[in-house]
């Protein structure tokens, strides 16, 4: 009897208003937190790599000598290793990714065959990097080694080619999904116009679909390149961990930006060495972010058409 209904409602209203305020505050600030997280990553990498920048200056970027004991830190060998493995991987994976994308985006959009290939791609994307690396170490490197010895070279087995092949396999599901999406974006009236003129499927693909989706396929390539640059475990396991410029651009053991971090980080002796590895992380972050933004922009522009 002590409280009237309006008083009770008033109390409820206050608690609702409080919850309402709290919830909106939480929502906005979580979103701000996400933005700060990304900014924080960039700033942390910048601060962390500052000592090595001060020590080596721009030589950190283009120096070809990496010797932690002599405090010489030049990233060129890793940049070269990264670019070689990533581009070689893209070249190897191109025909496979485009075939799969055509198959799923044009040949079989539905049905058993589409389901089979969709599941294969999903499985490929689901296998962890470390298992790809292990499989390559067991199956691929001995075969590369025997190929090398038959060519009269030192039979390392591990090296740029091994890493590129593993990377190529890992990039296929990613490139395929981007390329498939842009292939399905091709307007049906163009496609049907070509068919109605009597074009074969090959001609439709060659003269309408591929020209129309060229930008999207390149965007897929950029996004896959971003992936390939940053891929760590599989590459670390088969690249051979060599800190000098590769003598042979196909077979030599090498190191990528990512693999040199994975190999050296927990064993770094000095804080300068650690800072140099964080510097490699900064380069990696900037490279993959730029490729990511570029690729996404191209796709967005295509979708807007």
């Amino acid at each position: 009897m002590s409280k009237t209904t309006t008083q009770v409602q008033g109390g409820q209203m206050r608690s609702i208003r409080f919850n309402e305020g709290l919830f909106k505050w939480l929502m906005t600030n979580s979103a701000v937190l996400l933005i700060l997280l990304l900014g924080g990553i960039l700033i942390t990498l910048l601060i962390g790599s500052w000592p090595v920048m001060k020590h080596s200056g721009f030589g950190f970027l283009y120096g070809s000598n990496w010797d932690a004991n002599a405090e010489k830190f030049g990233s060129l060998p890793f940049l070269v290793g990264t670019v070689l493995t990533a581009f070689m991987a893209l070249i190897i994976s191109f025909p496979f990714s485009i075939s799969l994308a055509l198959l799923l985006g044009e040949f079989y959009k539905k049905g058993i065959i589409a389901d089979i290939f969709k599941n294969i791609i999903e499985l490929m994307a689901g296998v962890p990097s470390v298992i790809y690396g292990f499989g390559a170490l067991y199956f691929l490197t001995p075969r590369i080694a025997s190929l090398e010895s038959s060519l009269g070279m030192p039979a390392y087995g591990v090296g740029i080619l091994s890493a590129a092949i593993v990377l190529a396999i890992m990039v296929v599901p990613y490139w395929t999904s981007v390329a498939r999406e842009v292939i399905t974006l091709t307007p049906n009236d163009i496609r049907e116009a070509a068919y109605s003129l009597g074009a074969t499927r090959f001609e439709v693909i060659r003269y309408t679909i591929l020209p129309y989706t060229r930008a999207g396929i390149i965007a897929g390539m950029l996004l896959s390149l971003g992936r390939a640059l940053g891929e760590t475990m599989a590459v670390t396991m088969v690249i051979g961990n060599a800190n000098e410029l590769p003598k042979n651009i196909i077979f030599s053991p090498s190191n990528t930006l990512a693999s040199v971090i994975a190999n050296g980080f927990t064993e770094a002796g000095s804080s300068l060495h650690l800072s140099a590895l964080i510097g490699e992380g900064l380069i990696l972050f900037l490279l993959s972010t730029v490729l990511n933004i570029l690729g996404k922009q191209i796709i967005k522009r295509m979708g807007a058409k």
Partner: protein
Amino acid sequence: MKEQKRTLNARIISDFIFNGLVLLISAACAVPLILILYFIVSKGLSSISWTFLTNIPKPVGETGGGILNAIIGSLILVVMASVIAIPIAVIIGVYIAENRNTRVAKLARFSAEILQGVPSIVIGIIGYIWVVRTFGGFSAISGSIALAIMMLPVIVRTTEETVSLIPGSIKEAALALGVPYYKTMLSIIIPSGFSGIMTGIIISVARVAGETAPLLLTSFGNPFISTDPTKPIASLPQLIFNYAMSPYQSWKDQAWGAAFVLLTWILLISLLSKFLTRRWKIQF
């Protein structure tokens, strides 16, 4: 006329060859996958036994070593990462979907896109600097924070996509009945999008369960069973890495066994997500 027929034949043949090539090259993509699955099943199954699953590693040469420490470690890491990432990520996703055109939402969505492309080893460096260095040692919590950072963008984007597909009329109906905004979000909008949000969560869990690179720099590994979040902890992917790179045959065999366990786990999680999407899909 003859000329025309010849070119027609050539066109038909080239079409035929092209179709065959596309099918053949596509089918070739399955070869590495089949090889890896074959190795894992043929070599992994033979090293799996009850002792393998319920014992911790023993020194090289002794038989009966297992991977229990890594199984428990991986479970702890993934559960802790999920607890950290899921609530924040779902709220961010709802925020972006609800405030589509504000500057904060646009920036947050952009950040999620960029964060998704950041290499996992870089996230490992961040976990090392932010947590390991601050608290003076490798720890399970630093590993799960690194994994949580990797889960965030995936869940944010699937939540955002799901929530923005829910018709505005549902939200308006709730608000018109006097339901407070936060209750509308928490007990109407999020449950309506449950299957989509859950799929995002499961995909992100499957993705970080096999993640190795960030753990090398954060949770470090531990040959014993540990449940203390402030101490180093073992994990399945890292154990596979260490054993695969070791020179001992017995460890390599065990790595196949661990790979079998890890892959089975990831496949089960993915199957669960497919089941959930079908079962709890709400059609609008």
